[in-house]
């Protein structure tokens, strides 16, 4: 009996690099790979949930997508929303981190507060923002009136709706960028700064010539991390506007969701999902390329 146990143990030891990850590989296959393959298959079919069986139509769904104005609208909204929110979050996050990067009383309190916006349940927070953004009774218009500005229509107007959603996204995620950059700043070498002070460099000069190049890899990491979630932002947009007014804030991702689960058009929904997936993938590959290039230099 004891020998049997030893035999098993030594078998496990010899194949540990296969046995240990095996359950995870199986789980990933079932919950990740199977759905992706299914989506690719479905994107070549025409099928509505509950109506007959899928019919193979080749590339027709993809051709349809490129002549679908709502597809192009979704693409436009997605790039506008993501481009604006990502850049604002990176710039603001960096500036706030540089500002907070010193020893002061309450520093750890500030850092704790900065965890809350991105840790808190997105749907709950988005609902509160929805109330605050209400043009009639919302707190934001009240604050605008306090500083003498005219009220805004916020999410009720096609013109301001994306900006309002960007505001919520920036509120939620800038603190995370700040914390990431802050951790990066703390680990930077001290010598270049001391040398710069001796040479009489000004604060903006130090920022441009020392901090920015040194912190660049961290900024790229933060950008990669944020873009993973930002391009497929769902909870905030779905909760606050559901893509409205009209389709003014309907990202491609949200459109793909609606196509599959509100219009039950599965084949076309899958096609849109595959396109979103490819866009996210390409975007990440590009950023990674830039990142490695900048690290080599």
């Amino acid at each position: 009996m004891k020998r049997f146990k030893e035999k098993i143990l030594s078998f496990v030891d010899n194949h540990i690099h296969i046995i240990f990850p095996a359950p995870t590989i199986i789980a990933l296959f079932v919950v990740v790979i199977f759905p992706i393959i299914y989506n690719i298959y479905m994107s070549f079919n025409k099928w509505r949930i509950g109506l007959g069986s899928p019919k193979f139509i080749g590339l027709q769904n993809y051709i349809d997508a490129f002549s679908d104005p709502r597809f192009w609208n979704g693409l436009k909204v997605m790039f506008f929303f993501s481009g604006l929110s990502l850049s604002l979050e990176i710039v603001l996050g960096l500036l706030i981190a540089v500002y907070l990067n010193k020893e002061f009383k309450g520093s750890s309190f500030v850092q704790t507060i900065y965890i809350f916006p991105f840790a808190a349940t997105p749907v709950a927070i988005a609902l509160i923002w929805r109330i605050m953004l209400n043009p009639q009774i919302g707190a934001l218009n009240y604050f605008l009136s306090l500083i003498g500005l005219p009220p805004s229509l916020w999410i009720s107007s096609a013109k301001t709706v994306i900006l309002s959603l960007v505001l919520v996204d920036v509120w939620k995620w800038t603190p995370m960028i700040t914390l990431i950059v802050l951790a990066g700043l703390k680990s930077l070498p001290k010598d270049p700064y001391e040398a710069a002070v001796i040479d009489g460099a000004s604060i903006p000069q130090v920022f441009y010539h020392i901090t920015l190049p040194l912190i660049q890899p961290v900024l790229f990491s933060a950008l990669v991390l944020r873009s993973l979630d930002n391009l497929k932002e769902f909870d905030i947009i779905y909760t606050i506007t559901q893509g409205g007014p009209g389709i003014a804030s309907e990202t491609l991702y949200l459109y793909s969701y609606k196509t599959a689960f509100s219009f039950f058009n599965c084949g076309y929904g899958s096609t849109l999902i595959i396109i979103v997936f490819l866009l996210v993938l390409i975007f990440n590959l590009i950023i990674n390329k830039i990142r490695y290039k900048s690290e080599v230099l």
Partner: protein
Amino acid sequence: MKKNIIYKILFYIGVVILIIPPIFVFVWMIMIGLKTGVQNIEYPPLFIFKPTLDNFKAVFQQHNFLQYLINSFIIATSATFISLLIGLPAAYSIARYKQRKLSVAILVARMTPFVSYLLPWYILFRRLDLIDTFTAMITTHLIITLPMIIWLMIAFFEGVPRALEEAALIDGCARSETFLRITIPLSMNGIITSAIISFIFSWNQFLFSLILSGPKTRTVPVAVYNFMSYGKIDWAGIGAAATIIVFPVLVFAFFVRNKIVEGLTRGALKG
């Protein structure tokens, strides 16, 4: 000296300005929950009022919120537990044997838009008659918790000194025993941290529950969202419900505050 003090005061004013936006939204959330329905639609918004706990009572009594809290708790805990069970050995293997391909596969899982999982799952679970069951909810939540736990634990396992493991191996311990008796106990901090972060992510997850849950397994994010679709929007109820579901998250986040950023960046730094 005087200049120094002025500089300090200005600095702190800046700090206060920087923490007002995050604090305000949470304070406002609680205030909405403590106002009556009528007070909530007054303009200009009321800042001073007599707080009422009626909304919090109503959330539990009329909307069956306790059930949703329990559902969310069961799903988040089970998904986290299963992820630890199968994710810890995988993370250990990746950390010790530098299995880069596997780590990339896990990153891809994290990158894939959630909607792309949803449709096949929905069709599959409908066929198996598993919509609105804990099986379906927990299985789907694994997609969030498993990659999360593996990513976090790779880093923690890499930090466990190999010398200790090797000493155990020389003493005749098998590798799998070394893992259980040496590596796991030494990584307890990391395991707790990643379990908490995984719990938070599962608790917050909205999209899967929106489609795959039903009256029996509804989770709190969907429950609070539904306050909007009962015809009339119940602002006060939303304030109270939001406060209730955000509270445990903030408590947990507070416990892992020093690790959460490190944990969240790990995926990006190594991608």
